């Protein structure tokens, strides 16, 4: 199963996944530093440690497919082809941001790339993805719609409604639950009963629980789900078990009185870092020389610098822009 010949991914494909995960990681590390320095206007929820999920899923999608994302949405935005310059400028609150500074971190969207947007409402993206899946079904062009949501969001009633209606109508929908072990500061087990993947069962919706830190496993599960959706066979639920290596929100140390997890747990998950794991796999099977990864690292460092420079040079929006965009 896990040999290069058994998986349907070339060395080139794997390097593309590596590149995408690394881009997310390095952009977010930079945003984390910016936050610490006090340079960001608002809160950021970083995706560090979870990059394999967005990357493995979005590798199957084109601009014609839709995704709905979460408050932890930078990774989905970049994995779906969002422009890092426009992302960073948006998080900086600048006129050059993808939403012209109107939305910030929790609302990055690019409809031209099928990105319906990050979402400040936990579970809020699920219904939007169902609607886009309905549109895709009516269009009959084989497009699919993916809803990313957290384990915390899985406890919102809208998930049941979405499972029911999408199974009933055989909508081209993929529900991707990112189970990162926490709903804010509550460990999942303290607020969630049973396995989230099992929530698809009573609806007859196929589901899988996969190692969300293994981009190949995510890619394979998403491959099956996206094919099924494109073929008109209806929705699939994929639960990706992962872990957020950073805080729930970068500001949390400033307002939390105690800690909600121990350092050993974080360290154990850091050992399962999805990017290092893919690097290890490439090495183990001799799929890419170390120089290839070094070149990617340099390429991404340049992309991050470019995005930050673009964002920094972009002005703040004019004050009267606050009154625009409410109505078309």
């Amino acid at each position, binding site marked *: 199963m896990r040999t290069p010949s058994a998986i349907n991914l070339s060395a080139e494909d794997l390097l593309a996944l590596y590149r995408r995960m690394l881009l997310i990681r390095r952009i977010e590390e930079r945003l984390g530093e910016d936050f610490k320095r006090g340079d960001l206007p608002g809160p950021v929820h970083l995706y560090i440690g979870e990059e394999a999920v967005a990357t493995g899923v979005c590798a199957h999608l084109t601009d014609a497919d839709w995704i709905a994302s979460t408050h932890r949405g930078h990774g989905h935005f970049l994995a779906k082809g969002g422009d890092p310059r426009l992302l960073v400028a948006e998080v900086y609150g600048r006129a050059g941001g993808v939403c012209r500074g109107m939305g910030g971190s929790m609302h990055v969207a690019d409809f031209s790339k099928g990105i319906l947007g990050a979402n400040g409402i936990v579970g809020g993206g699920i219904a939007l993805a169902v609607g886009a899946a309905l549109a895709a079904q009516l269009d009959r062009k084989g497009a699919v719609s993916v809803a990313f949501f957290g384990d915390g969001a899985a406890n919102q009633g809208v998930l049941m409604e979405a499972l029911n*209606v999408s199974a009933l109508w055989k909508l081209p929908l993929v529900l991707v639950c990112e189970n990162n072990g926490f709903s804010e500061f509550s460990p999942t087990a303290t607020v969630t009963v049973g396995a989230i993947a099992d929530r698809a069962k009573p609806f007859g919706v196929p589901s899988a629980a996969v190692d969300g830190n293994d981009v190949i496993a995510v890619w394979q599960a998403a491959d099956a789900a996206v094919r099924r959706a494109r073929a008109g066979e209806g929705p699939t639920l994929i639960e990706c078990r992962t872990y957020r290596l950073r805080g729930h929100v970068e500001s949390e140390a400033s307002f939390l009185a105690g800690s909600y997890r121990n350092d050993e747990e974080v360290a154990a998950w850091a050992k399962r870092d999805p990017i290092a794991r893919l690097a290890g796999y490439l090495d183990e099977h001799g799929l890419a020389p170390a120089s290839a990864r070094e070149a990617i690292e340099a390429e991404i460092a340049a992309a991050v610098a470019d995005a930050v420079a673009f964002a920094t040079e972009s002005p703040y929006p004019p004050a009267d822009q606050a009154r625009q965009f409410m109505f078309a």
Partner: protein
Amino acid sequence: MARRRMIQAINEALAEEMARDPRVILFGEDVEISIMGDTRGLHATFGPDRVRNTPICETVMTGMAVGAAAAGYRPICHMMYGNFLYTGMDAIANQAAKLRYMTGGQIKLPLVYMGVFGAGRSSAAQHSDAMHPVFMNLGGIKVVLPASPADAKGLLKSAIRDDNPVIFLQAAGRGGEAGEVPEEEYTIPLGVAEVKRPGRDVTLVAIGAMVRPALRAAEALAGEGVAVEVIDPRTLMPLDAETIVASVRRTGRLVVVDEARDTCSAASHIVAVATEGAWGALKAAPRRVTVPDVAIPYSPPLEKALLPDPERIAAAVRATLER
């Protein structure tokens, strides 16, 4: 002109707009058989892709409308009773009303949430709210309340063609009311009030189902020598403040009739806007005729006691003339 009931006029608007634009789709609970009669026949004419019964799932339905609109369709999401808008409120308030704004104007969201509202049929508290003020305050949603079959048809056609989220509320129990409807194609622009009856003494603004009792009151007052100008805003968000303020500047007196509960009713807002805009011309304190801050009761005499009627409206008008 043709004689049409309110429900027929709405049905015609839906059918005409669906025929005109293949991207208009309609979904909701029991829209295929049609409980209110407003969607009757549409499933047969336009087929199961474009007219679909949904499960009972207001949370996902209201959000689906947003997603489908973002993805290029013009959905009409039928909510049956307006009170069920509350059940689907998250997507209305947090997604539909804000998605275009939050994303810097990247998209248009052409969608309509429709349903019936208001009291008068012993439907009791959970099926009788006049909830338009809630939606007026969201900002990104247009709010339309027609008072006649002709207005209902023309306004709904505009709502469907509008590139923004619109809440279209038809007064429950008034679906059978008949009126003259133009036979030729027409639309009525959103955001434009109509002077239903001109008059020089008092401006009487009436909303939705309150237009009819307001006109009756005006008729009765005419017999007393008082010329009442009745204005129907038709669209509450955006509000045609200009027409109302201009009228109040002429008459110097204002009464607003609204079926909503008193606190933060549309009447409250209209009185505030008119007072600011016509302060110098005011000859008496503006008055509101609304429903007290209670839920709607079941028993007919109780329900009737709460709702504005021609007598209460006329009394409020007379009160503005006392000095």
